Structures are given as C-alpha cells and as structure tokens.
C-alpha cells in the first residue's frame, strides 16, 4: 500500500515543467523625434527571452529554494506556475492542472506570499481579511476554526488580530500574510522574499512556521529569496537560474562539495604568537591568540591538519568553518556554473 502510494507520487510530481520558455516582445523604439515618428508607422519588434528551456519536477512535500540574480527569470517562472502568465512554449503543470488554462482552479491549489506586497485589507482589522479569504476559498467553518487556532498559536497572532493592518509592524504583517496564504490549505505555496526587511527574531519565527507547515502538512514550498540564510535553514534542494536558464538543480550538499573545496580551521591558542605556519595550509593570525588555517580538503584531511597544529602549538579551542552558501552562489553568478571548478574563489 505504502509502496503503491510512493510509486504514484513519483509518477506525478506536484510541479512539472518541460522546456518552459517565455519571450517578451516589445516594439523597437528608435531614439529621437524622427525615430518616434518611425515607431508610429513601422513595427519592428525586439524579443527579450525571460525564461528558456526550464525543465524541472518537484515532488509533493518538497521545500525548494529557487535562486537567481535579479532579472534571472525567477518571477517570470513563478507567474507561469500561478497561471497569470502564458508561456511562449513548453509545458507546465501544477497539481495536474495547466495553470494558465484553468487559472481559477489552479488558484485553489496554491498560496502566495510576497514579502514586498501584502494581500491583507489595509484599513480593516487583520481578522477581517481572514474572514474574506474564508469566503473566497469557501473554507468550511470547521476547517477555518482549526486553521485559525493553529496559525494564531504558531504565529502568536492573538494580540493583534483586532488591529487594523496599517498599524501592524512589518513582522506582524508578514505573519498575517502567511496565515492568509495558508488558510485554504494550499498544496503548493510560493514564497517571494518572505523575510525581507525583518529582524532576526521575526525571520526565525517565519522560518520556523514554514518548516512546521512543511513537516506537519506536507505542503510543497518554492522559496524565492536573496537571503541565502533562509535557503540554508529550510531547503535541502535548490534550483539555480541565471539569464533565464536553469544552471543547477540538486542538493545544497552537492553544490557545497563541488565548490566548497576549502575549509578553514579556526584555532584559539593558549599563548600569544607572532607568527604561525603549518605545511599544506594558508595560515593567518587574526589576533595574537586566534589563528586561521585555510586548507583544501582534497589534499589534506581535517584530522591531519588538527594533528599538525596541536603538535606545534598549545591549543585551547578548535572549530572548522564551512564555506557559506552565499559565497558559493556569488561565485556561480560571477563565473557561471561548472561541475568541476578548478580554482578556489578568493576569500571574501
């Protein structure tokens, strides 16, 4: 039984795109007054390829980071998945539905949260927005009560449910927006910069909420963000897009293994030193008692390095720094993705 369900789930991913492509066409404008006049009569078009050849499949319950620099085609893809943009070519399916053909039906399966844009009623108490959404999605009274109870507790909303949205802090508003997006139990939720502008505490609350819903309800999340800490904390898988093309789709670990060939051993020394040196590692003294050794883990194991260090210096504490996802991604944006990069990025 269990196996059968799994086979079915594999046979039909919740989100599926094949060779998805979107080209925006606009009228070519020639500068100057004469040019403006010419534009009026002759129609020359310029095509801008926003997304091309994007093929991906997401299984139900996945939490995927959809990453790329500004203008890479992220929001164009999301718009096609939500059905408000018609692809130029290629296929797209969300929960078995072609979004742009049946936008309204698709809308019932999805939820959206935009960090920069609220879908709450500005002038009215927060609770009224929920009641409105209840009517829009036809949520049963029972389900509404259960969800409201759950979200109110998880997001600690009880103290501001009766406050007009315009008087809420950004953190409170975002929590309201999350509850609003989840009220109709969507199968897929698109998050666009959900933690932008939030303080660390609010960020953590939102991240915890996403992880909780994903675990408890098996909701699929696509997280679009520039804050890679969100991705590191929440996602196992990331999809990288640049210039409209998919350049990486896989586990964050794979990316780290490919790019993060170097580690740093941070050592606290018992006695101050003027100079430190270890064979096979780049040494650096941050303070007289704090040394950093950068090493390539392909040529030397951490164990060897630790042994060499402890043999030579009295050590009070030791830790290993992993490369941050952010520096890896930054390098890929700059150089493009290659499966076997041969040089290590300069420390930044």
């Amino acid at each position, binding site marked *: 039984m269990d196996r059968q369900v799994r086979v079915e789930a594999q046979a039909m991913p919740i989100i599926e795109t094949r060779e998805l492509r979107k080209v925006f066409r606009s009228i070519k404008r020639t500068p100057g007054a004469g040019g403006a006049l010419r534009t009026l009569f002759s129609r020359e078009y310029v095509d801008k390829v926003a997304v091309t050849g994007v093929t991906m499949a997401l299984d139900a319950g996945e939490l995927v980071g959809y990453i790329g620099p500004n203008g890479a085609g992220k929001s164009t893809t999301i718009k096609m998945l939500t059905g*408000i943009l018609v692809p130029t070519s290629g296929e797209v399916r969300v929960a078995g539905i072609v979004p742009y053909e049946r936008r309204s039906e698709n809308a019932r399966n999805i939820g959206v949260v935009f960090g920069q844009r609220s879908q709450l009623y500005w002038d*009215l108490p927060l609770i009224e927005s929920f009641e*409105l959404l209840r*009517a829009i999605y036809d949520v049963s009274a029972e389900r509404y009560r259960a969800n409201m109870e759950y979200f109110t507790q998880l997001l600690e909303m009880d103290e501001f449910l009766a406050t007009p949205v315009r008087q809420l802090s950004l953190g409170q508003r975002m929590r309201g927006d999350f509850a609003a997006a989840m009220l109709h139990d969507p199968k897929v939720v698109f998050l666009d910069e959900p933690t932008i502008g939030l303080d660390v505490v609010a960020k953590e609350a939102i991240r915890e909420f996403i992880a909780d819903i994903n675990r408890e309800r098996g909701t699929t999340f696509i997280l679009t963000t520039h804050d890679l800490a969100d991705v590191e904390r929440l996602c196992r898988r990331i999809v990288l897009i640049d210039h409209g093309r998919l350049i990486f789709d896989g586990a964050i670990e794979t990316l780290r293994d490919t790019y993060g060939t170097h580690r740093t051993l941070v050592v606290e020394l018992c006695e101050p030193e003027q100079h430190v040196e270890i064979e096979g590692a780049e040494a650096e003294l941050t303070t007289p008692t704090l040394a950093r050794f950068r090493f390539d883990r392909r040529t030397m194991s951490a164990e060897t390095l630790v042994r060499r260090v402890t043999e030579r210096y009295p050590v009070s504490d030791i830790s290993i720094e992993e490369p941050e996802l952010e520096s890896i991604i930054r390098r890929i944006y700059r150089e493009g993705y290659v499966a076997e990069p041969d040089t290590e990025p300069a420390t930044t």
Partner: protein
Amino acid sequence: MTFRIAPYREFAKKAFAREATYRMEVFTNIGSLLVRLYLMKMVWTALYAQNTAPAGVPLHAIITYTTVALLMSLVLEIDGTRIIRDRVREGSIATDLMKPINLPLYFFSDGVGQTLLHAILIVPSLFLALFIVHVDVPPPLALVAFFFSFALGYVVNFLLNFLMNTVAFWTLETFAIQLIVRWVSDLLGGQIVPLIFFPGFLQKIVLALPFAAVYSTPLLIYTGTIQPSDYARAFASQLAWGTGFAILSTFVWRGALKRVVVQGG
C-alpha cells in the same frame, strides 16, 4: 465550477466597512454638498430674478432638480472601480489574479459596498438640505420610476468608470482622462444644468449621448418633464447604453487581461 455569491457579498461588506473608517471624509462630503446647494440656490434665484423662466421651468422646479441632482451625486460620484487603477499601478492586480474569483464582479461588489455607505448619507443630507431649500415631491408613480431609472443610471455610470479605469492597464495613469470625462459628463449629463435648457439642436445631441442616461433621465422623470407615457422609452434608452457599455467592457477587459498574461503587465 459553480458560482458562489458569498465572496462577493463579503467584498461588498468589507468595502462598506473600509469606507466607514474614513469618518472625516464622510462629514466633509455632507458639508460640501450643503455649500454647493446653497450656492446653486443663490445663482438660480438671481438668474430667475432677471429673466423669464427658461423652457417654462419655474424656479421651485429648478431648485428641486438641483437638490435631487446633488443628492444623487453623493452616490454617483463614487468611483467604485478606482481600485482597478490603484491595483494595476501597485502591481497587486497580479495577486488578485491568483485568486479564484471573477475580477470585474469583485470590483463591482466593492463599488456597491462603497456606494451603500454613501447612499445612507442621502438621508441626513436631505434632512439638512430641507433647511436651505424646499423640495417638490412627485406623485408615487414618478417616484418609483425615478428610483428605477436611478438604478439604471448607476449601472451606466459604473460601466463608464470601469472602462476608464481599465485604461490603466495600458497607461497606468488615468487621472487626467477621468477628470475631463467627469467634467464633460457632469455638464452633458445634466447634473449642473437641465439638458432641456440647451438650445434645440444641441439639446437633441446631448439627450442622445450616454451621459444623459446617468443624471438627466432619472431627474427629468422626477420633475415630470418625462411623462409616464414616455417612461418605457426612457428606460429602454438607458438599458441600451448599459448593454452597449457592458459589451464594450467585456472586450476591453479581455484585452487588458491578455496584456497582463502575455506581456506580464
């Protein structure tokens, strides 16, 4: 998918509640109406003192006309579809499109909600207006016909606004166009001066324009210029404009949507 009325009733309720939060604006509306009414009374009285009654309309009739027109404007000046313009400019139209709702119907319900709040204002406004002017009351049949005609005019007015606000999908800004259309429609719609005061040839034209369907037709029914025998014709003309604009709106809306889903807004 089956159609459910519940979301739209809820939209109207929320719009009503939202408008009610702007209490100052509500009071200013009544105040400005009373000032305008007083000025109109002075102007008409002065004009009538120097001239013979135009088109055989006595002073008390013209003052009744003006008062009723101003009370109607409390409802008709509500641009219920300005949220289209706002939401297109903010880009939040995208989130609206991600909901399982019929957007034009959503805008309409929102407009109705706003209108209902302002319609309530008619009662205190009329009460206060009676301190300034005397208002003639027509026979019951004319009164019923007036309200029916007013409702038709409301729909025509709504569709005119809808069309204008939908232009925002192409231009983002519609304020200037709307201001011009508002002035033209107030003048040619008979809100300021009864259309029967226009000279013969011009009168035929303005009465044939859609603007007349908004203010002039219900008002002329109220004042008895349009007799019961002509009610059917008056309603038919309003209905024709309403239907015409509704069809036009459908096409414009489709074009607007296509623009969003193909061009990405």
